[in-house]
C-alpha cells in the first residue's frame, strides 16, 4: 500500500487545526460514479461547486475545488470499475473522498508524474490521458492524500480551505 500526502505551506496550520478539532461536517453528500460513464461523470463535481457557490465561497476557490474534484471523478470513471464520492462540507473547508472498486494503481509514484498515463483508446478519444490529472489535483488541492495498490481500491482525498 502506498500513501502520498501533499500539504501546501499555507494550509499546514489549518490542516493541523482541522485534524485536531475533528469538527462535524455542516453537510455531507454522497454520489455514485459509473465505470466509463462519460455522459454523467463530472456531475458530482459540478454539483459540489454549485453548493459551495451558494454558500458564498469565492470564485477562485470554487475553481480550485471544481478542477481537483473533476479530475478525481474522471479518474474513477476512466481508470476504475466505478466508485463513490463522499463530500463533507465544513465551515472553513471542503473534504472530498473518492473511493473506487479497484483495480488500483500498481506504481503510485509513476502515476503522480506529469505525462504518465495508462488511459485506453476510449478514454483518449474523450480527451483524457494526458497524464496531467493527478498533478492538476496536487496543484489545486490544499491537502491531497492517495492510497492504492494493485488489485485494491484507490482512495483519494482532497481538502480545500476557503
Amino acid at each position, binding site marked *: 500500500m502506498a500513501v502520498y500526502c501533499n500539504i501546501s505551506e499555507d494550509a499546514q496550520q489549518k490542516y493541523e487545526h482541522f485534524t485536531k478539532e475533528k469538527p462535524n461536517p455542516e453537510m455531507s453528500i454522497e454520489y455514485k460514479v459509473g465505470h466509463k460513464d*462519460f*455522459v454523467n*461523470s*463530472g*456531475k458530482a*463535481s*459540478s454539483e459540489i*461547486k454549485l453548493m459551495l457557490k451558494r454558500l458564498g465561497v469565492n470564485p477562485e476557490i470554487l*475553481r480550485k475545488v*471544481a*478542477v481537483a474534484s*473533476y*479530475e478525481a471523478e*474522471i479518474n474513477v470513471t476512466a481508470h476504475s470499475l466505478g466508485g463513490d464520492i463522499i463530500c463533507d462540507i465544513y465551515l472553513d473547508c471542503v473534504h472530498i473522498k473518492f473511493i473506487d472498486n479497484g483495480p488500483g494503481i500498481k506504481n503510485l509514484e509513476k502515476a503522480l508524474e506529469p505525462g504518465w498515463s495508462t488511459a485506453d483508446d476510449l478514454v483518449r*478519444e*474523450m*480527451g*483524457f*490521458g*494526458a*497524464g*496531467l*490529472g493527478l*498533478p*492538476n489535483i496536487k*496543484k489545486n488541492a490544499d491537502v491531497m492524500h492517495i492510497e492504492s495498490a494493485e488489485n485494491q481500491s484507490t482512495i483519494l482525498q482532497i481538502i480545500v480551505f476557503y
Partner: protein
Amino acid sequence: MKLREIVELLDGVLLTDAEHLDREITCAFGSDLISDILMCTKEATLLLTGLTNPQVIRLSDMIDLLGIIFVRGKKPADDLIEMANARDLPLITTKFTLYKSAGILYNSGLRSCKI
C-alpha cells in the same frame, strides 16, 4: 472582439441562441486534452477544440468558458447544444482546422489566455 466577428472570420455557424453573437470575447485557448485545458485556463476564455463529447460542455461547469469553437467541421449532437443553451454557453462550428482557426483569430488581435 464580439463573437459575431469571430463567426465571420472563421466562416462559422453559431449553433446556440442567437443573442450569443453579442458576447465580448477577450482571449482564447486551443487544445484537445481536457486536463491541459483545466490546467491552462486561469481566466474566462474562448476554447477552440476538436472534442465534441459531453465532457467538453461539462468543462464549462468547472472553469469559465466564454464559448466553444468546434474545428475541422465537427458538430456536437443536439443534446449537447441543449446542454450548452442551458448553461448560456455559445457553441460555434467551423470547417477550418485548429491551427488555421487559431492563426486567423490571433492575427485579428485576439490574444492568448493567460496560462
